[in-house]
């Protein structure tokens, strides 16, 4: 039996846990049950691909969510089907030994590169250094030799919180710096471990990466909008909304649209796959989606409890909601129209009807 009490990494993955993990991944990939044996076979017999996992500007939350999923089978499965040659959080080696492992793999073997975290580019990239080298240099050295790159988390894909305006370190995602190597983006803050596992298993089984959308996200996980698969959708269509957190409607589980849920503009499988093996996700526990799988979500999805971002009028310091600014401009327009009409009428009264050319 899988050890669900002692939540530690266990290299001994039993068959039941193994099959369970493969089945979850197959479900996430939208594959038929008949495909599961193929996945299992590929996961069990293929040579474990070597994986180099680079950490740049990040919080390690993606790794945490991946390896400390409440049910350890997923983490075990991931560690069982890949050979994690370099991962700063979990590797045993340290210092020069760790660096050696990295170079040995990069120079001598085919490998998959996983990147977690954004890469700062400003001032020569000095804002993130590991072993005396900038993140930019490390990526430039490792990435071209990878057979494929998986950017995990919103930082590695789109820059994440570091890239939020005004982006002081010039942080960017992997796809902004690397070309010529296939890149899969698995955004999210953090992303669902199943989406990562599904991508790896797809690669092992079919020897190619899964189909991607226009932002290089696997379609099996990011092909559909949260809103269109949300369990609270009926409340939206029937017009039952939470007006305020904690109100009676909130307790009844109504739609979180009016308190700023970004489900209508966010692509992810959260409502279907859910998190932590206990079948929850933000909306199911009463908090709106914050749109963490979308580009620039720190800029475009904030304020998190409003529907739309604030309008900033450049060089004026004016910040307000679109409707507030719109109303002001409309009011000024109406006033101008009134003044224009009054001037016209006044002029007529003074000059009399004589100016009439009729």
């Amino acid at each position, binding site marked *: 039996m899988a050890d669900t009490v002692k939540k530690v990494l266990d290299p001994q993955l039993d068959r039941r846990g193994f099959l369970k993990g493969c089945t979850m991944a197959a479900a996430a990939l939208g594959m038929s049950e008949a495909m599961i044996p193929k996945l299992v076979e590929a996961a069990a017999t293929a040579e474990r691909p070597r994986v180099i996992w680079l950490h740049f500007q990040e919080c390690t939350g993606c790794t945490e969510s991946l390896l400390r999923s409440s049910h350890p089978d997923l983490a075990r499965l991931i560690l069982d089907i890949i050979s994690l040659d370099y991962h700063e959080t979990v590797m045993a080696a340290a210092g020069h030994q760790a660096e050696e492992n990295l170079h040995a793999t990069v120079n001598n073997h085919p490998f998959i590169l996983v990147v977690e975290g954004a890469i700062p580019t400003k001032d020569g990239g000095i804002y993130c250094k590991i072993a005396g080298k900038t993140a930019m240099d490390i990526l430039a050295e490792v990435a071209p030799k990878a057979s494929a790159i998986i950017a995990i988390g919103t930082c590695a894909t789109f820059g994440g919180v570091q890239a939020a305006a005004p982006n002081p370190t010039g942080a960017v995602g992997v796809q902004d710096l690397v070309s010529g190597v296939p890149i899969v983006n698995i955004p999210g803050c953090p992303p669902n471990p199943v989406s990562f596992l599904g991508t790896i298993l797809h690669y092992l089984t079919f020897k190619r990466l899964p189909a991607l959308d226009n932002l290089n996200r696997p379609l099996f996980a990011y092909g559909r909008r949260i809103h269109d698969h949300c369990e609270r959708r009926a409340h939206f269509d*029937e017009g039952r909304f939470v007006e305020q957190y904690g109100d009676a409607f909130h307790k009844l589980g109504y739609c979180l649209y009016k308190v700023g849920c970004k489900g*209508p503009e966010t692509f992810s499988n959260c409502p279907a796959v859910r998190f932590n093996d206990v079948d929850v996700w933000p909306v199911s526990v009463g908090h709106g989606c914050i749109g963490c799988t979308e580009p620039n979500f720190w800029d475009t999805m904030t304020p998190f409890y409003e529907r*739309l971002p604030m309008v900033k009028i450049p060089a004026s310091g004016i910040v307000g909601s679109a409707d507030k600014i*719109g109303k002001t401009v409309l009011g000024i327009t109406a006033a101008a129209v009134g003044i224009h009409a009054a001037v016209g009428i006044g002029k007529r009264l003074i000059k009399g009807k004589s100016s009439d*050319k009729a």
Partner: protein
Amino acid sequence: MATYERHHCWSLLLRLFHWMFALSIIFLIVTGFYINTPWTNTMIEGSASFPMATMRYIHYIAAYVLSSAVLIRLFLYIFGNAQERVWDILPITGRNLNNLKMTLLQYSYISNKHDERLGHNILAGLAYLLTFIAALLMIVSGFYMLYPESAFWAKWGVMLFGSQQFARYLHHITMWWFMIFAVVHIYLCIWNDCTEPEGLISSIFTGAKFKHKA
């Protein structure tokens, strides 16, 4: 005593365009506000009322009317009559530039002279062109939000807007242009109708304007 001649100015298609455009936009603005901030809260479960779904449905019907209107106008900008074609209102000829200047002077009460012209004055024409372009933006961002999973809209939407959220943001801000335009537009139509007895307002129903006999 001035004598007037009746001139045919706007084709039936243009008048059809105008009212499809104006009416659909009124519906789009009202339902658009509802979509942004649904001001009703049903509270009763299983009541068989679908206010949000209904408002969105009306929004999309109006959206298709607007899109058809825009297609009609696009056709008329190229193949319409002399007043309807796009170069009639572009400030590219000396005569058109002069009309723009004269209109500005007249609207600011500096001059009383009216530069006679059968079609739109250049200032109006440019405002209409801008509104036409704003409508295109509404259509593109709207269809991107409506069909997020279609390969075509997903590709172009991401290329143009980056994300659904940004499309929605632009869609919402641009709505304000139509309201501001409508206020000024209706006011200036009335103003012109009072200033120049050429039958401007009825022209958008009848297609005819009245001009001084030469």
